């Protein structure tokens, strides 16, 4: 975001589409233009990432870089809102791209039919101003974290389990990174986790809002803070988290 680049202006159509959010105090045409000229990487586009992508496409972010492998299976459909019943057995990323384009045909999409891995992470992060981490495996999360620290990009890290969720915004050089929080790979984490789409969707909307704020300069972000939510009793807590002075990634 620091680099100087030519800022594309809003078209008449865009002014009409975003009319109601242009009225948000502290946002306006200037904020909308920043979104239009921004790019966000989202990985993956499952229960959480689907909704992040949909909200950012709706909000008018100019470019989305989306990584998600595999074909649609029945158990995706309780939460992966960019997949459809008619798409069962077909490519997830094609479904993601098509559904986003239906909502916002102006959106530029870089669609990758594989998950984040060692071979693609550097290139994908380099194309983005902000990364939203919605991956179900710590290996993928740690790869994105390492790369945003290297490339000094902002990472919005969203995660959920059952009726619980958490989110923080990582700003390299300022805040703790994911490896400060988890210096070792968590052993208890399993690939299959209990999930309602309404829970992954809730933290996804929070993550999309964080990305919008980081890109447009609106409001205050969750930098250095971990917001935890438990929808079983509707408790929300903001915890302060610490940089690890011995962090192998950011120190």
């Amino acid at each position, binding site marked *: 975001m620091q680099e100087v680049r030519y800022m594309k202006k809003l078209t008449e159509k865009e002014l009409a589409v975003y009319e109601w959010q242009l009225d948000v105090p502290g946002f306006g045409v200037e904020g909308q233009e920043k979104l239009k000229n921004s790019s966000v990487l989202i990985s993956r586009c499952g229960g959480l990432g689907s909704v992040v992508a949909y909200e950012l496409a709706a909000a008018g972010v100019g470019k989305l870089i989306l990584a998600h492998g595999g074909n649609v299976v029945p158990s995706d459909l309780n939460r992966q809102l960019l997949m459809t019943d008619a798409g069962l057995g077909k490519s997830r990323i094609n479904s993601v791209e098509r559904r986003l384009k239906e909502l916002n045909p102006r959106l530029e999409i870089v669609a990758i039919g594989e998950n984040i891995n060692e071979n693609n992470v550097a290139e994908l992060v380099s194309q983005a101003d902000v990364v939203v981490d919605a991956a179900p495996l710590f290996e993928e999360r740690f790869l994105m974290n390492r790369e945003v620290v290297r490339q000094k990009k902002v990472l919005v890290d969203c995660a959920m389990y059952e009726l619980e969720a958490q989110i923080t915004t990582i700003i390299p050089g300022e805040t703790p990174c994911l490896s400060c929080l988890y210096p070792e790979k968590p*052993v208890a984490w399993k690939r299959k986790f209990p*999930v309602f789409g309404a829970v992954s969707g809730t933290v996804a909307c929070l993550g999309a809002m964080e990305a919008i704020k980081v890109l447009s300069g609106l409001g205050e972000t969750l930098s250095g803070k971990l917001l935890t939510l438990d929808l079983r009793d509707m408790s929300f807590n903001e915890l302060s988290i610490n940089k690890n002075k011995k962090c192998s990634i950011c120190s």
Partner: protein
Amino acid sequence: MKIKIKYTAQLKKAIGKAEDLVDVNEGINIEGILNHLNKIYSKEFANIVFNQDGQFMNAVLLILNGKQIAFNSEKEVKENDVITIMSPIAGG
């Protein structure tokens, strides 16, 4: 003195409850509390919080009254303090 401990995610499942009130001696630190919990809970607690050599797993987040605290912090835990022990989650 009584200390309230809260648990999240897989720890909540392992213990079978979201929070507990434990009775500990004054002057105790966070490490002492975790060792105490290790004695009163089943192996499932230890499997998440400690490794096979009995050392604390650094991927477990410890929160004292809303602020992250290190396992080896010397800070004394006081009556009515609330400790949250967070099992790492990555669901997307």
